[in-house]
C-alpha cells in the first residue's frame, strides 16, 4: 500500500482531522517534504489573494465604503455566509463519509437532502410537529432508508469501478425526484418556521431560522465527530475507511460497517435537508443544487476528509457572500468564484485542502 504516504501532513496547525489521526505518520510535522511545505505556502498566499480580490474590485467600483453602516452590512453578510457554511457542512460530511468508506460517489446525495426537506414539511403541515422535534423520527427513518439502500443497491457496487456507483446513485436520484414529484407535485414549498429576525446589535440582524439551523448543524456535526472519534463502532468505520481488507482481517464485519455508514450518511443528508427546508423554498428538483454544492465542498476539502469538508463549507459560504456583496453584478458571479476557487486549490494541491484519503 504505497500510496498511503499521501495521507500524512499537509493540514494547517490547530486542526486534527479525525481520519488522518489514525493514519501512520511517517513524517512528523517538522519533517514535511519540501514540496508539501511549498504547496502550503502557495495555498495560503493564494487564499489571501482570493479573499482580498472582492474587496479590491469593490474599492475600484466604489461599492466598498469605510463607514460604519457599510461595515455592518459586511459583518451581516460574512456572518450569514458562515452560518450557511455550517449547514452545507452537514451534507458534505455525509457525502465524504460514503466516499471515504466505500469509494462510492453518491450522486443521489442532494435528493436525500430533498427527501429530508419533504419529511420535515409533511411532519410540519400534516402532523403539526416542530421541525426540530421531527428530527427525532425523521433521522431513524433516514437511517433505515440508507441501510435498505445499501442492502439492495450499493452492496453490489462496492469494489466495482467508481463509475458504477456513480451511475447507480445517479439513477437512484432520478427515481427519487420523480417519486417526489408524483407525491408532492413540482410546486415550491416553504416551511414558515421561525420567520422572525434576531437583532444581534442595533444594526446587525440575522434570521431566527438561520441561527436555529446553524446551532443544530453544530450539535449534529460535533455528535458525529465524537461518535467517529470515541466509540468502538466509529473507530471501526474509520478503520474500514483506511483499509477495508486489513479491517476485515482484524475482525471487523465490514458489510455491517457499510450498512451503518450509508445509514449515517443518509441521516446526515436528511438532517441537512430539514435545516435548509426552514430557510429556503424547495421542490423535488432542488436536490441537484445541493449535490453540486456538496461535491464542490468535498473536492475542495479533500475527498474522504471530515474536517476538510467543514473547512471547505465555511470557505465557500463566506467567499460566495463576499463576492455577491462587493462585486458589481456579483450574485451572477458567485458560481464562477466558487468553482474558480475550487480549480485553483486543486491546481495547487491536487488532493484538495487536506489531500485525498486513500484506502
Amino acid at each position, binding site marked *: 500500500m504505497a500510496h498511503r504516504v499521501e495521507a500524512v501532513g499537509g493540514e494547517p496547525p490547530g486542526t486534527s482531522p479525525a481520519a488522518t489521526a489514525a493514519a501512520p505518520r511517517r513524517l512528523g510535522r517538522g519533517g514535511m517534504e519540501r514540496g508539501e511545505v511549498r504547496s502550503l505556502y502557495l495555498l495560503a498566499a493564494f487564499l489571501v489573494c482570493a479573499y482580498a480580490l472582492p474587496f479590491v474590485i469593490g474599492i475600484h467600483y466604489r461599492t466598498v465604503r469605510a463607514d460604519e453602516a457599510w461595515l455592518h*452590512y459586511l459583518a*451581516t453578510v460574512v456572518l450569514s*455566509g458562515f452560518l450557511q457554511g455550517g449547514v452545507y457542512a452537514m451534507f458534505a460530511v455525509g457525502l465524504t463519509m460514503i466516499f471515504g468508506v466505500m469509494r462510492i460517489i453518491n450522486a443521489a446525495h442532494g435528493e436525500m437532502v430533498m427527501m429530508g426537506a419533504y419529511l420535515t414539511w409533511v411532519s410540519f403541515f400534516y402532523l403539526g410537529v416542530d421541525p426540530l422535534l421531527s428530527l427525532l423520527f425523521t433521522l431513524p427513518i433516514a437511517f433505515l432508508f440508507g441501510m435498505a439502500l445499501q442492502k439492495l443497491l450499493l452492496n453490489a457496487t462496492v469494489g466495482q469501478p467508481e463509475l458504477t456507483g456513480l451511475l447507480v446513485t445517479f439513477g437512484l436520484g432520478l427515481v427519487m425526484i420523480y417519486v417526489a*414529484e408524483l407525491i408532492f407535485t413540482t410546486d415550491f414549498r416553504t416551511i414558515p418556521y421561525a420567520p422572525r429576525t434576531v437583532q444581534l446589535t442595533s444594526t446587525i440582524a*440575522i434570521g431566527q431560522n438561520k441561527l436555529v439551523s446553524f446551532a443544530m448543524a453544530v450539535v449534529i456535526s460535533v455528535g458525529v465527530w465524537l461518535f467517529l472519534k470515541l466509540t468502538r463502532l466509529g473507530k471501526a468505520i474509520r478503520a474500514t475507511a483506511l483499509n477495508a481488507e486489513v479491517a476485515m482481517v482484524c475482525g471487523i464485519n465490514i458489510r455491517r460497517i457499510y450498512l451503518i455508514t450509508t445509514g449515517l450518511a443518509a441521516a446526515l443528508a436528511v438532517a441537512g435537508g430539514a435545516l435548509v427546508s426552514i430557510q429556503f*423554498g424547495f421542490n423535488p428538483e432542488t436536490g441537484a443544487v445541493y449535490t453540486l454544492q456538496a461535491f464542490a465542498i468535498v473536492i475542495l476539502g479533500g475527498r474522504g476528509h471530515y474536517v476538510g469538508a467543514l473547512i471547505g463549507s465555511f470557505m465557500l459560504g463566506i467567499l460566495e457572500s463576499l463576492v455577491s456583496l462587493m462585486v458589481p*453584478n456579483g*450574485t451572477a458571479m458567485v458560481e464562477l468564484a466558487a468553482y474558480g476557487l475550487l480549480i485553483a486549490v486543486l491546481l495547487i494541491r491536487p488532493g484538495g485542502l487536506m489531500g485525498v484519503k486513500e484506502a
Partner: protein
Amino acid sequence: MIRRATLAMVVVVLACLPLGVGAAQAADEVVFGGAISQTGRFAEPAGRQVNAIKLWADDVNKRGGLLGRKIKLLLLDDKSDTQTAVKLYEKLITEDKVNVLLAPYSSAITEAVANVNERYKMPFVAYGAAASPIWEKGRKYIFSMVAVAEDYQKGALQLAKKTGIKKIAIIGEDSLFPRQVGVGAKQWADKLGIQVVLQENYPQKQMDFTALLQKIKASGAEAILSDSYFADAVAQLRQLRELNLNFKMFSGTVGPGLPNFAEQLGSTAEYVLGFSQWEPLPDVLKYPGMKEFIAAYRQRFGEEPNYHAGTAYGSLQVTEAAIKNAGSFDGQKLRDALASLDMMTVFGHYKVNAAGMNQHEGLTFQILKGKRRIVWPESVAENTAELPMPEWSKR
C-alpha cells in the same frame, strides 16, 4: 443473480415499449400538441396554462368539436428546459405529426422553439411569452397575446413616483424574460425621473439572497423592483424580513400573481406589488365570456383562474376562431387567419400588428389582506395603493 435482474429489466422495458409508440390518430380527431413545463421551476405558472388548455379542449369537444373533428391533446413535459423543449417540438411535428401546435411556457423557451415551428410553417399564439425580442426577428408563424415584458414594471414605477420614491434597485433572474423586464423598467424609471442606483441579475436557482439584499440596502435604494419568477421572489421577501431590511416598496413580476404566493408567505406577502396580465374580475374588466370561464375553471380545478390560465384560454379562443375562419387546420392558412383576426376573448382584445404582436395593457396589483387588489391603471383600480410599506417590526 445480477444476470437475472438484468433479464427482468429487459423484459420490463420491452413490455413498456408498445405503450410509447406514437399517438394513433383516428380520422375524426384532430391532434393539438405542445410541450409545456409540467415539472421544474416553471411548473407553477405553466401548470395553470395546462389546466386552461384541458378546459378549452373539453369545452370545444362538448360543442361538437372543431370543423367537425374532436380535439385530442398531446401535451409533453419539457421539464422547464430549453433544449428539451426544442427536441420535443421537433418530435411533435415530425414523429407525432400533430395538426396544430400549442405554445410552450416562458419567453426563453418560446424564443428557442420559435425557430422550430417557423421552419415547419406551423403557427401558434404564444400565451407564455412576453419578451418583445421574440417578435423583432421577422418571424411569421408566432403571434403574441400578452403585454410585453418591458411594461411589467410600468405600473409599479408610476406608483413609486406618486409615493415620492427617488432611488430604486432593479434585480432579476438572468434569463430572457426577466432581463427584458429589467430593460423596460430602467427605461420607464428614466422617463419618470427615478434614479436606478443598482441593477443586477442573479443566476437561475439562486436561493440565498442575503448578500444581494444587503448590497441593495447599502446602495441607498428605497424600493426593490424584482424581475423574478416564483421561488426567487418568495426567497427574497422571506430574507428581507429575516434581515429586517425595510424598503418603501417591493414589486415582483410573475410570483405575486400566483395563488400560492400569499398562501406561502402569509403576512410577509402583504403590501407587495405584482404584475398581472389579467384578473378573474368580470365586473371590473367586463370581457365577454369571463364569468362562464371563471366558473368552469373554479369548478374543475378548485381555485380561481389566475392570469396564466386566462391568457392560455384566451389564446386558444383566438386559435379556434382562426381555424374556423381558415376553414382548415393547414399551417399556412391558419397563419394568415391569425394575422388578420380581430376579436374579443375572455382575456381581452386580440388584433396583432405586422410583427405579430398584440396590444394588451397589463394590471398592477397589491396584495392586501391576502388578496390581490388592482391598484393601477386607475381606470380599473379596486383600491388605492398602500405605500410606502410599513416596516417589518410594525406588522
